[in-house]
């Protein structure tokens, strides 16, 4: 219980430190990446360098990740501000989302099938 709590606190602090360092780096160095993404890359680097940090990060990150949907609610409700723009472009958005998503899904699956089939047939030669 206590150990779990300590893990959570350590993991949460690590995530927050990466977030703030990433934000600071993006702003001060003028990286083209958003701060949170820079933070993600820092945390990823930490995990690769020190894999022992994984259980700590997991303790804090997993509950947040599995419930991240609720975090989008304030942003999603913000679309009401763009209502006229959305209504004016309703057809275009509908086609862009419904039709092109289906086409992209089909094409990607087809390409993946071809590429993976090549792998299946060459398996055994370079199976690591």
């Amino acid at each position, binding site marked *: 219980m206590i150990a779990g709590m300590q893990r959570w606190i350590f993991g949460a602090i690590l995530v927050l430190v990466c977030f703030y360092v990433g*934000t600071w780096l993006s702003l001060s160095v003028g990286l*083209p990446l958003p701060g949170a993404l820079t933070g993600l890359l820092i945390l990823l680097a930490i995990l690769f360098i020190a894999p022992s940090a*994984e259980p700590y990060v997991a303790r804090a990150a997993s509950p947040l990740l599995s419930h991240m949907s609720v975090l*989008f609610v304030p942003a999603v409700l913000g679309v009401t501000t763009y209502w006229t723009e959305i209504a004016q472009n309703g057809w*275009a958005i509908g086609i862009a989302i419904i039709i092109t*998503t289906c086409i992209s899904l089909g094409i990607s699956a087809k390409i993946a099938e071809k*590429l993976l*089939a090549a792998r299946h047939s060459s398996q055994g030669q370079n199976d690591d």
Partner: protein
Amino acid sequence: MMIEAISHALSLSGLIWLGSTLLFYWVGLRINRKYYRYPISHPLIFTAVSVGTIVFLSNTSIEIYQQSASFLHWLLGPVTVALALPIYRQWQRLHHYGLPLLLSIMAGGVVAPIFAWAALWCFDSPISMQLTMLAKSITTPLAMEASAQIGGIPALAAVFVITTGVVGAIAATSVFRLFDVTDTQAQGVALGTVAHAVGTAKSLQMGDEVAAMATLGLCVNGIFTAIILPIIFSFLSP
């Protein structure tokens, strides 16, 4: 930012709006667990529609709601950082499947945004909307960050992303039949790459192997798109 968000959360309106959002989310989760076969039961859809209705009926301005619930919005930053964990975990698996898989994911990651953008471009839609569409196939927090960076609209990105996921998950079975794709691994890769987390949730019903491939597609495409889009645009508009 964090202190501000917490102080908003602890005010009366903060407690009411934060509390009701979490309550509706809890109900949404229960509905989703019961009707998990239907992608439209995504908890975000139920929560956003319910909370939106209450906000509208109570004559509250959306700005007041957003301020009261700003703690949730603030958490988007840390949750984006936390995505490093699933990406790290998928890395070994990516290594195992090697180049063919990486190329498959990249193909989907390039095809999906270009088609979506082209549709809006043909209709001469506003440029901010066209840019937002470029991020529609990646996971929501990354899409919001990336679209904000390249001049899109994060709120719109969230809606486009979720709709894309739901459409992809609903259409998947028919699309794979239409394109005559029978390899389940290929189906998984396409679902995760084009329809992110909602597609991945759908792939869970198609078996563990498919779900593993979808998770891989989701993570790899998410990180690459979120890095490459802002870099391309920083060169285009110095």
